[in-house]
């Protein structure tokens, strides 16, 4: 009955779906390409493999934090404390492993456990006491910034040995070329197989299914993107372990958010909390879990930052890290108003921000210019979010 084969989407179709907020990732992916072409033309060094390897490594820590922010924004809340949480986590790892003599992995686990506890406290305070998350997490930002300084006393900074696995993981370990290509093959084949079996099941169930052309387009796009990344980064050191970790985390979060009951509940609560209550969803538990996921990812981001820097100091996770992470989520297309967004927006958003920062640095522009440009891009992103939302038919 409804099994007419869906034809390839026309440009008008794509535009309409973008306006309705379905294809949130397309505009930002397009923007990223424009930014890369622009900076590449202005300074060809931008396109060099070595620079892009650096760009990928620089993006990991903030990207992991931004992924947590995406989850909290989806559930209709906000977490301003992510920077401080990452700073505390970095301090815990460094102080524990170097000053305290713990094995490094214990330090990492303790740091992430600290994140989990912070998330639990925030989530419970928001759901049980009804505190507004904006102010509560602002308070947590201040408290944890103080805690971070205390942990690092008296020196104010702790260096992590360069030969520790954490530092190597974040700086020195890269996938061997043959392995990177094997991963690309496995991922593309796996994706195609999933698509194909999904398509077969839909056809068997007499439901509309994607045409062969659309499926091929999706598989081809994924293959092209992965091949480009591996080829370009392979021109220098390659794909870093930490980069792989980040992408895997995003992919896992994407599946959890789109294909599980938990993810459905997250979207529903962010979209219409009362409706979620009336539908019998475990609203409080889900909101708490979102805060826990966010703080745990922030802590992991802090650990990765410490590894990348081979040190933790009072500035780790400080300054505008939390704003950058939130900006990355929003620039990537996750709505500040809750209920709309994708895990991948953390990846795309952080790439946009880091690309701008990296590109402007190559052009010898100072931090002031970088700040102004990043701010303008954020303003553009939030305008798109609000206008799209306002234009949605009632």
């Amino acid at each position, binding site marked *: *009955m*409804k099994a007419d084969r869906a034809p390839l989407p026309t440009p008008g179709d794509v535009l309409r779906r973008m306006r*309705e*907020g*379905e294809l949130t990732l397309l505009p930002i992916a397009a923007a990223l390409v424009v930014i890369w072409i622009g900076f590449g033309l202005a300074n060809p060094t931008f396109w060099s493999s070595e620079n892009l390897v650096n760009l990928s490594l620089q993006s990991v820590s903030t990207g992991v934090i931004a992924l947590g922010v995406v989850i909290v924004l989806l559930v209709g809340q906000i977490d301003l404390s992510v920077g401080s949480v990452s700073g505390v986590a970095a301090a815990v790892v460094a102080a524990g492993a170097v000053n305290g003599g713990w094995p490094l992995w214990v330090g990492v686990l303790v740091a992430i456990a600290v994140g989990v506890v912070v998330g639990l406290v925030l989530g419970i305070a928001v759901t049980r006491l009804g505190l507004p998350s904006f102010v509560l997490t602002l308070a947590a930002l201040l408290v944890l910034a103080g805690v971070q300084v205390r942990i690092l006393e008296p020196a104010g900074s702790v260096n992590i040995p360069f030969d520790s696995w954490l530092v190597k993981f974040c700086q020195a370990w890269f996938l061997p070329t043959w392995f990177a290509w094997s991963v690309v093959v496995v991922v593309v084949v796996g994706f195609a197989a999933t698509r194909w079996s*999904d398509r077969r*099941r*839909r056809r068997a*169930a*007499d*439901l509309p299914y994607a045409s062969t052309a659309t499926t091929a387009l999706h598989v081809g796009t994924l293959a092209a993107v992965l091949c480009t990344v591996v080829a370009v980064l392979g021109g220098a050191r390659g794909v870093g372990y930490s980069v792989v970790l980040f992408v895997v985390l995003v992919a896992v979060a994407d*599946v959890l958010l789109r*294909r*599980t*009951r938990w993810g*459905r*509940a997250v*979207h*529903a609560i*962010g*979209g*219409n909390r*009362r*409706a*979620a*209550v*009336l*539908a*019998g*969803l475990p609203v409080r538990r889900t909101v708490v879990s979102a805060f826990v996921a966010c703080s745990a990812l922030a802590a992991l981001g802090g650990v990765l930052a410490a590894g990348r820097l081979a040190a933790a100091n009072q500035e780790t996770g400080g300054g505008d890290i939390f704003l950058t992470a939130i900006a990355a989520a929003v620039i990537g297309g996750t709505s500040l108003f809750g*209920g*709309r967004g994708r895990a991948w927006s953390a990846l795309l958003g952080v790439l946009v921000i880091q690309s701008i920062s990296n590109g402007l640095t190559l052009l010898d522009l100072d931090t002031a210019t970088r700040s102004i440009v990043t701010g303008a891009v954020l303003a553009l992103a939030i305008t798109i979010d609000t206008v799209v939302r306002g234009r*949605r*038919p*009632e």
Partner: protein
Amino acid sequence: MTSPVLELSRVSKSFGAARALIDVDLAVHPREVVAVVGDNGAGKSTLAGVLAGVYPPDAGEMRVDGEPVRFADPGAARARGIATVFQELALCDNLDVVENLFLGHEPVRGALLDEIAMERRAWELLDQLGASVPSVRVPVAALTGGQRRTVAIARGLLGDPRVVVLDEPTASLGIRQTAELLNLVERLRERGHSVVFVSHATSDVQAVADRIVVLRLGRVNGEFEADAATSEDLLAAMTGARPVRRGGGR
């Protein structure tokens, strides 16, 4: 007459000093459309909330199939076969039709949602209700008021409930959409559901109801067989304009 599916006896509910429901009796029999009408502030929405499990009553008893029940939350009411479609519909605008229909009751295949089973069942249900929804994969924000209401009602029907409570289903609907909705209520009865139709629009109610219960200031102020009641009777009972003639059996 058969024994009631759902029965309320002397149910009261207060919000602080405001007494929203006072000693309300209500019986709903199988395949019966019972209308609850009343003016603004008569307690209609509170009654719907009590039936839905949103507000636990302060006093009185609720029985399903003669067995006393107490609903802690909307899920509990649903589990006992009472589905409520709220006036504000309680849909998530950011989710599509399928996602809204199955919210909180998604079938899973392994650990992941079974989208295909959901989509199939969604089409079946919407076809049965005679709904004209362009696609079950559009966000409900893109649907018309009537379509949204149909989606909300279809969601109520998913667990195959005994009683469907419709809270002000015709509010904000146009003339044609109202007619379609009244048709839908007939279909619900044909499918074997009992319906509690809460409304302030007496003309809509008279078209489909078997029995009409009038609420006034939180109390039951009259009960009529729909065939026997005139608009004047209902209006009088709703406003308390003159002493009420009790019609129909209890």
